[in-house]
């Protein structure tokens, strides 16, 4: 039986309807939505890649690079998300094994961090090495879900991975575990970033041979590509390490703020030194420096055609005021000084006379198990006195910057650094300590300008000490031969570093005026040097000793906390004895009220009544108990520790008491003495240069304060400092400056730390040539025994600098005679 014609016609009708539907749909797609589709077509097949230039270079003043970026090439890998069959995995594993071979044949290595580690019992367990159980759990969950291994038992993980990624098929059944781990580590890198549409880096800094090999074989190396990158190089090793600083990856806590500035997650940022403080200048990641490349990509994510390209801008370069050669010379000189001090200290520690004299203290040390602290750490700063420019800055111990090369820090080296004597700390700006006698020029200038002394007034040393402020235990001069400090005017007093003279000046000035002069010379503020981590120097006074605005544990010294604890212990004991129930708030309130008395009243005599009132009414001690146990007197004694007395003032005048200064602040204070009263901000950045060589910023000296006073005062002080090194005058450091090439003026400072004199700090400030100063040098060695020993560091540096200055003047001198001939 034949098909029915009618049915055929019905079928034709249905077909006509179907084809009409196709036509309508097709024309709708093209004509109504064509533009939307076209737009999507262009975004779908394009990829925007953000490009970054290179980080700026840090130069010394002679354009010797201290840190620069080197072009490097990374190998990247992109797994097409659509290619996830078993055969595809095999192909990718083959590719990865081949990449490992290529990279290793050129002496580099691929990323090799695999999160399964073999246990002693031979089982491969999850261990990403974070050390924290919580982090491990999160990571393992993440890892398992990215590998689709959520339900695989731990002991089967290794086997499952081997099978799934067909590693043994590629490497052979007898492959060693090391090479298997290498392949799996790359798979891990890819899997852990599977959500990202961009390739992952599987080998860093591979070198040109590998690059060309990979490019030649791009057809059979599935998803493998080469990417330009850069890595940081620190060519100078330990030289200027504290100034230069280093870069490191963004830490998790900083990530968000840097991301907001447009930094990528794996960016390197400056972590210390100039690298950190001038991050905005150096970094290529700043938004407007980023470049953009829009490329067309195929399904494998491989760039096929470049559609648009905006070149990235490199970061700006920074030229510093320091000089590499001088830095090296300073570093070695400082080490020489420190070892000379150690030698002297060793001699003392083996000298019968010294041991007998310090017998009591040494016994006490032995009892407490305290070690005698010897010279180890220190800093030296060289400054141009007329601009505040830092000529050199070293800190000891130092560290080798080259360990940060290429952004990879060897953990063992890093741990060595951390275990050491805090070598990362730039002691030239980051430590503050009692200045000792180098403070005396402040007292001198203050005394002269305020008119409490004249340059010619004679003040003699007295054997009985300075009885005016403490008649029971009067402060004495450092010398045991006061008869040598007689007939002293200012110049001689500085030469002798006579404490009695400066006690007298300080006593006459009073602490407020003394403090003001310290402030005027820049010893109570930061020098604003362009480096991170600068500490603020301060000069002692009541406010510095105890500031009631701040809690006891947040003060300049430990004294308020000690006082607070002593008073609290006493009160708590009483409460226990008497079974009193005093709430904590009442106790805290009473303690802070008590401590505030030191600031409120000017003399101790005025404290008695308020102390009694606080004890009786606020705390509720019975009146009889207070008077019966001499409670008020007890508390007066406690509070005396945080009460500024005239005796503190005279101590402050010779640089003791609680005053603490940083080496760099001292450098600018001495510069001000030398240049006649201009206090400059310390400056270590000379200029900033754009990548095209144009100068973005030429830094000018910044005047922090200008002191207007009689020029003869400076002359007198400088004369005193010149005498310090003068043999005929017999200054405190004259033997260390004998037969000098240049006339160097200096002042020593030996600030007391403990009862033991070997633990004294060593300070020296110097400038030269005395008649026309070109350089100011400050040397500070903690536990350096005596100020004069710092001359071992200071003198060679000055001579080296002036020699090189002389040399450059000679060569730049126009030679008239040759012209005439």
């Amino acid at each position, binding site marked *: *039986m034949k098909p029915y014609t009618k*049915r055929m016609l019905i079928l034709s009708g249905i077909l006509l309807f179907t*084809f009409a*539907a196709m036509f309508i749909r097709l*024309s709708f*797609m093209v004509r109504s939505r*064509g533009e939307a589709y076209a737009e999507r077509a262009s975004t779908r097949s394009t990829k925007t890649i953000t490009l970054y230039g290179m980080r700026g270079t840090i130069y010394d003043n002679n354009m010797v690079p201290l840190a620069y970026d080197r072009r490097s090439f990374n190998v990247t890998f992109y797994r097409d998300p659509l290619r996830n069959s078993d055969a595809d995995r095999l192909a990718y594993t083959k590719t990865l094994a081949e990449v490992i071979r290529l990279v290793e044949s050129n002496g580099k290595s691929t990323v090799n961090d695999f999160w399964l580690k073999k246990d002693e019992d031979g089982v491969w367990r999850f261990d990403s090495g974070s050390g924290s159980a919580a982090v491990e759990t999160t990571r393992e969950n993440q890892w398992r879900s990215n590998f689709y291994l959520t339900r695989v038992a731990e002991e089967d993980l290794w086997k499952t991975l081997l099978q799934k990624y067909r590693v043994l098929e590629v490497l052979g059944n007898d492959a060693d575990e090391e090479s298997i781990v290498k392949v799996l580590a790359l798979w891990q890198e890819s899997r852990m970033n599977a959500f990202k549409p961009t390739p992952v880096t599987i080998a860093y800094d591979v070198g040109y041979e590998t690059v060309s090999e990979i490019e030649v074989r791009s057809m059979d190396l599935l998803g493998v590509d080469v990417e330009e990158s850069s890595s940081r190089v620190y060519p100078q090793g330990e030289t200027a390490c504290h100034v230069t600083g280093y870069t490191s990856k963004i830490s998790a806590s900083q990530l968000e703020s840097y991301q907001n500035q447009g930094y990528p997650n794996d960016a390197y940022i400056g972590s210390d030194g100039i690298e950190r403080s001038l991050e905005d200048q150096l970094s290529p990641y700043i938004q407007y420096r980023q470049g953009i490349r829009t490329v067309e990509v195929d399904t494998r994510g491989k760039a096929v055609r470049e559609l648009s390209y905006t070149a990235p801008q490199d970061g700006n370069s920074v030229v510093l005021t320091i000089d590499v050669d001088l830095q090296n010379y300073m570093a070695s000189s400082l080490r020489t000084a420190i070892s000379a001090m150690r030698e002297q200290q060793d001699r003392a520690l083996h000298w019968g006379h010294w041991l007998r004299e310090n017998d009591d203290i040494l016994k006490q040390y032995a009892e407490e198990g305290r070690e005698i602290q010897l010279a180890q750490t220190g800093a030296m700063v060289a400054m141009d006195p007329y601009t505040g420019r830092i000529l050199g800055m070293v800190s000891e111990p130092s560290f080798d910057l080259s360990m940060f090369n290429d952004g990879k820090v060897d953990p063992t080296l890093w741990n060595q650094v951390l275990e050491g004597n805090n070598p990362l700390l730039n002691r030239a700006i980051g430590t503050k300590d009692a200045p000792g006698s180098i403070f005396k020029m402040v007292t001198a200038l203050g005394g002269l300008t305020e008119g409490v002394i004249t340059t010619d007034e004679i003040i003699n040393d007295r054997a009985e000490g300075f009885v005016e402020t403490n008649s029971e235990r009067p402060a004495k001069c450092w010398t045991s031969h006061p008869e040598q400090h007689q007939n002293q005017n200012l110049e001689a007093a500085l030469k002798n570093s006579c404490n009695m003279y400066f006690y007298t000046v300080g006593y006459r000035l009073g602490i407020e005026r003394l403090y003001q002069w310290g402030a005027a010379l820049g010893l109570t503020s930061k020098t604003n040097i362009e480096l991170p981590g600068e500490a603020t120097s301060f000069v002692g006074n009541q406010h510095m000793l105890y500031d009631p605005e701040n809690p006891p544990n947040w003060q300049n010294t430990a004294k308020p906390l000690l006082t607070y604890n002593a008073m609290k212990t006493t009160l708590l004991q009483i409460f226990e004895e008497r079974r009193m129930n005093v709430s904590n708030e009442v106790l805290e309130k009473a303690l802070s009220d008590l401590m505030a008395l030191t600031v409120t009243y000017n003399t101790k005599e005025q404290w008695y009544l308020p102390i009694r009132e606080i004890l009786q009414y606020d705390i509720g001690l019975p009146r009889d108990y207070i008077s019966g146990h001499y409670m008020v007197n007890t508390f007066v004694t406690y509070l005396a520790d945080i009460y500024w007395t005239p005796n503190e003032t005279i101590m402050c005048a010779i640089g003791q008491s609680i005053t603490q200064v940083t080496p760099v602040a001292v450098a600018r204070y001495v510069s001000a003495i030398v240049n006649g009263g201009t206090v400059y901000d310390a400056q270590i950045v000379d200029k900033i240069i754009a990548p095209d060589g144009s100068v973005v910023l030429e830094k000018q000296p910044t005047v922090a304060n200008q002191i207007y006073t009689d020029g003869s005062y400076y002359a007198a002080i400088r004369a005193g400092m010149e005498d310090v090194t003068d043999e005929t005058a017999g200054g405190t450091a004259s033997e260390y400056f004998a037969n000098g090439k240049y006339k160097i003026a200096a002042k020593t400072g030996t600030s007391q730390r403990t009862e033991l004199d070997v633990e004294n700090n060593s300070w020296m400030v110097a400038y030269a040539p005395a008649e026309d100063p070109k350089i100011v040098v400050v040397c500070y060695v903690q536990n350096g025994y005596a100020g004069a020993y710092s001359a071992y560091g200071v003198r060679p540096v000055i001579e080296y600098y002036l020699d090189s200055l002389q040399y450059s003047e000679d060569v730049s001198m126009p030679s008239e005679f040759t012209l005439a001939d």
Partner: protein
Amino acid sequence: MLSRIKAFIKYIRDNKFDRSLMKYFDWPLLINVLAISLFGVVCIFSATSSQVTETPANVIEMLETQSVLYPRLQLLWIGAGMVAMAAVIFFPYQLYERYANVFYAGNIVLLSLTLLIAQAGRGGMTAFFNWGSDRGFQPSEVGKIAIIIALAKAFCVRTKPIMTMHDIIPLAIYIGIPLVLIVAQPDVGTALVYLAVFCVMVFVSGTNSKLIWGVIGMMVLLLIPLWYFMNNSASGNFRFTRILMWLDPESYPDEARQIINGQIAIGSGGIWGKGIVSPGSFASLGYISDDHTDFIFAIVCESFGLVGGMALIFAYMLLVARLIILAMRTKDPYGSYLIVGVLAMFLFHIVENICMVIGLLPVTGIPLPFVSYGGSNMLTNMMGIGLVMNVVMRSRQHEQAQRVDNDKTIQLKRD
């Protein structure tokens, strides 16, 4: 058995291909098919082109810079298809009618062998016999022709239309056996082709509307457990997802990438298209997987625009219309059913393929006749055309002969 073979040989000898048959060759049909096929070769070239930064200046440069592997192979398949077509035409179609059951049984054997021997290929399907690396022969493709030959016989021998369930059950079992074998592969696309051929034949055989509605009703009832099954079983899941993807592709950006990218390619082609080998086209970027086989219609529209796509659909309409006309004209029931079977096969391929690309139907792995790249498919399609041609030529000759006889009879009567 021996006598049967002897009879077969004698039949062949008696019915040798007569050169005069060429007079009745249906040239419009062949030209239409060849035109579509050659257009397909160009589209395959476009689909397999690699990325370019600018459009090549002329055809020579284009051919020099681009891979012509697939277009060349496709030309080879077209040639092979013509040979296969000639072979199909060579034997009289009555022979196929006579040995219809042998074709049916042979198909079953091949399908079973495929299930047993062939290794799992792409997508977990066992549809290919493999040789070499990635080329293979797909028995279920050529099996379509066998099933058309067999079904046409089953329908033409009936004396009355299928009116009751009692009528349809034996036929359902007849088609059901190969169907189950294909579904087991699992190749649902091809199975649907078999089903489509069956349904169209049932429809044109004049079944009553009650049965049609009954079957439709049963299908709907069947859909409910099927839906439930797909929703829950792991293997059915991807087919279920395909349906969801079809309803709302944008919610499945990863799974429906092929569909979305295909539609974007069509839409972005505009009225006149981007041309072949144009920079930034999805065709050259390889953004649509299977763009030289199942999804080639997207490339047709991207390269030649709305105009090209509509022209292709129009060519298919001509082909279909021609087949319908030929089927109606042919007086021999078996020949007519053969043409209807071939028509149904093409129809299902064309409609399902184009509709899945433009988003009117869910995706099944079905090629576009004469355009998609593929050897087995091209052979099958050409053999289908050969069957039609065979029927047309022989029935026309027969009719002509009858007319001559009639004329002679009339002449004799006059005389």
